[in-house]
């Protein structure tokens, strides 16, 4: 009695048109999402003069009514030659990868303890973590700067990485992930087998939240990659600046060099896009694992 088995021509037609509609809607949404990217890319390939004169590519006599001859890679070459962008990219990679790995480690350990072990003070720490989620970051700007000065960490990567290595949000996510995917009986079994707590964590806990590890590494990486307010204040030496700050620096007080800014944006997206392609599967599995027991 499965109704799907009774395939009549009418049913196939209905199915087909439903599929067409689905694809049409998906394609339309995808087009809407992609148009700003196309605009971004086109803008980065224009001269300042053409930037203000045309919407996408400069109009002209060429194929598709585009003046292909006026397309220029000058913005990109300028970024590389004038602005030391290679160095900035390496800085960003360093900051983002170090922060994301340290933060994930700290968050996984903290989340594990809060989720899986009963100990005095657990409630208090959990509430503290939850409270930290709602603190506006701008509130901490001035006091944190003062703190870094006292600690001698201004203009150092340590001063950027250490505060970011204690992410309340990460602890919260990992706590949720452990609660939802690690049955306590499993740990009990391990304890009876004589496993130490560290061994339990590494051999049983971590493999079970493997997707969350991928997800959180990616989130932190993205966040660090694009963060600019705090690094802008802490770092002073130009050769230490990450890409986000270097590009944000291209914005002027009054006038903007849009072509340059757009080219910088394209350059800043490319590396994280590759990373996302690499981590996509874990990322998606991990995100929901954290959310299931929200």
């Amino acid at each position: 009695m499965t109704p799907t088995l009774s395939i009549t021509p009418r049913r196939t037609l209905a199915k087909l048109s439903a599929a067409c509609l689905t694809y049409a809607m998906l394609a339309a949404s995808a087009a809407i999402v992609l148009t700003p990217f196309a605009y971004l890319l086109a803008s980065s390939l224009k001269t300042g003069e053409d930037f203000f004169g045309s919407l996408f590519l400069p109009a002209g006599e060429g194929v598709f009514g585009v003046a292909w001859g006026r397309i220029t890679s000058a913005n990109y070459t300028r970024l590389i030659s004038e602005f030391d962008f290679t160095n900035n990219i390496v800085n960003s990679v360093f900051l983002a990868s170090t922060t994301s790995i340290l933060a994930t480690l700290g968050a996984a350990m903290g989340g594990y303890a809060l989720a899986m072990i009963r100990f005095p003070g657990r409630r208090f720490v959990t509430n503290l973590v939850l409270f930290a989620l709602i603190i506006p970051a701008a509130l901490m700007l001035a006091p944190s700067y003062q703190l870094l000065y006292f600690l001698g960490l201004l203009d150092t990567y340590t001063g950027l990485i250490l505060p970011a290595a204690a992410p309340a949000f990460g602890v919260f996510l990992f706590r949720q992930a452990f609660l939802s995917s690690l049955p306590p009986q499993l740990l009990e079994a391990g304890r009876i087998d004589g496993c130490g707590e560290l061994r339990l964590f590494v051999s049983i806990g971590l493999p079970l939240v493997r997707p969350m590890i991928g997800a959180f590494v990616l989130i932190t990486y993205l966040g660090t990659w694009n963060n600019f307010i705090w690094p802008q204040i802490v770092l002073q030496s130009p050769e230490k600046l990450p890409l986000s700050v270097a590009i944000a620096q291209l914005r002027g007080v009054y006038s903007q060099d849009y072509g340059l800014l757009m080219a910088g944006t394209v350059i800043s997206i490319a590396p994280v896009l590759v990373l996302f392609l690499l981590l996509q599967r874990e990322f998606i599995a991990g995100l929901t694992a954290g959310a299931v027991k929200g």
Partner: protein
Amino acid sequence: MIRLRQYLRSGSPISPGVVVIAGLMLASAAWVAVRPVAQRDGLSFWVFARTHYQMYVPVADRWREAGGHRLDVALLSADALPRRLIASMHAGTHMADLVEIERSMASQVFSGPIDGIGLIDLTDRLHAEGLYDRFNEPSFAPWTVSGRVFGLPHDVHPVLLCYRADLVEEAGIDITSLTTWASFKEAMRAMVVDLDGDGRPDRYPLSLSETHLDQIEALLLQAGGGLFDIDGVPTLASDVNAATLAEITTWLTGPGRIAGDAPEFSASGNRLRLEGYVVCSLMSDWLTSVWESDLPQLEGKLRLMPLPAWEPGGRRTSVWGGTMIGIPKTTPDPEQAWAVAKELYLSEPLARELYERAGIISPVRALWDRGWYAAPRAYFGGQRTGRLYLEQAPDVPRRVSSPFDTIAKAGLQDVVIQLKRHAEETGVYDAAALQPVAKQLLEAAEARVRWHMNRNVFVRERSP
């Protein structure tokens, strides 16, 4: 137990992606660790403008080679510089030995009691060395608090009227004879035309809109109004502001409308300028070079003239923007910093470069007779633009930098929008009839500024 063993065997918690990131971490860490670190020494100097940075670095290099001052110039973004200044001043840390500050950042630095300001008071030095009189006096105003000067002015930034000579000529109007805004409005009304016949004008005499707050503030200053008086007391609700805003409202809307919205620094604004949507724009000296690089198509079509005055014989200019150099109190070597500041800001080659690169005239009066200011500029049809700006320099209005500037500006914005809305809703487009309404709105806005000021115990104490 079988389940447990299964889990133990299920492998490493590390996915390939994480391994890649770990690899990136090690590789980039190695690069960061071994790369040579630039040795920094000498005075640290923060600037926010790329042009200035590009001008100062070669100077610093020359000094270094010649064994003179050792100067380390750092370019910070206009957002980062004030953030770092405030954070450093709060923490009491050493920041820079010299710093350039733009007017939009100044309010933060100049708030609080005089002795609480984080910059060295330069007043006595200026007078003792006879420097004060060498600068254009109004240019000190934004950097002065209660009569004490905290920075050397970098510029004057007078405002002129820039017009499309080709369009004006086509319309047969002798624009240079329009010496007041009233005559400008009357004569230029003829230039509001519908070119494509869609019932909507495609050309307006003036580039202005209720959201162009910088230009509106410049117009208020020209008229003798403004947000604060020279002592930092809010003057939003002054009669001159009310009258000026009422008049401006009639430019923005209604049957007498002469203003079209073509925002500066925007793609749409620049497109509209190319299309001739607006004929005239308020133009500060620094803006000339921005146009020249963003709108090369307009070369030869533009001319500059003094602003029409608000009343016959009145002031023909205003002011827009401004930068200073200051010395933070935390510097260990104020004498050398002072020496460098003077060399940079009094230097003739730098003043010339500043003019030739950015169109900006120097506030140092001794340089005003230099021939390079009189060089004809092709972009403006061969006009000697330097001279035109210099002629108006002594007349630029004074304005202060108040910490309550943001709030007062927001209040002004409120008033302009509401006044325009009021005119449209009631159909009253007569400046005299709008003036009491403007006054009322301005009073409410000023009361809000005062509320914020009175909240501040230090301000309360300073003005009982």
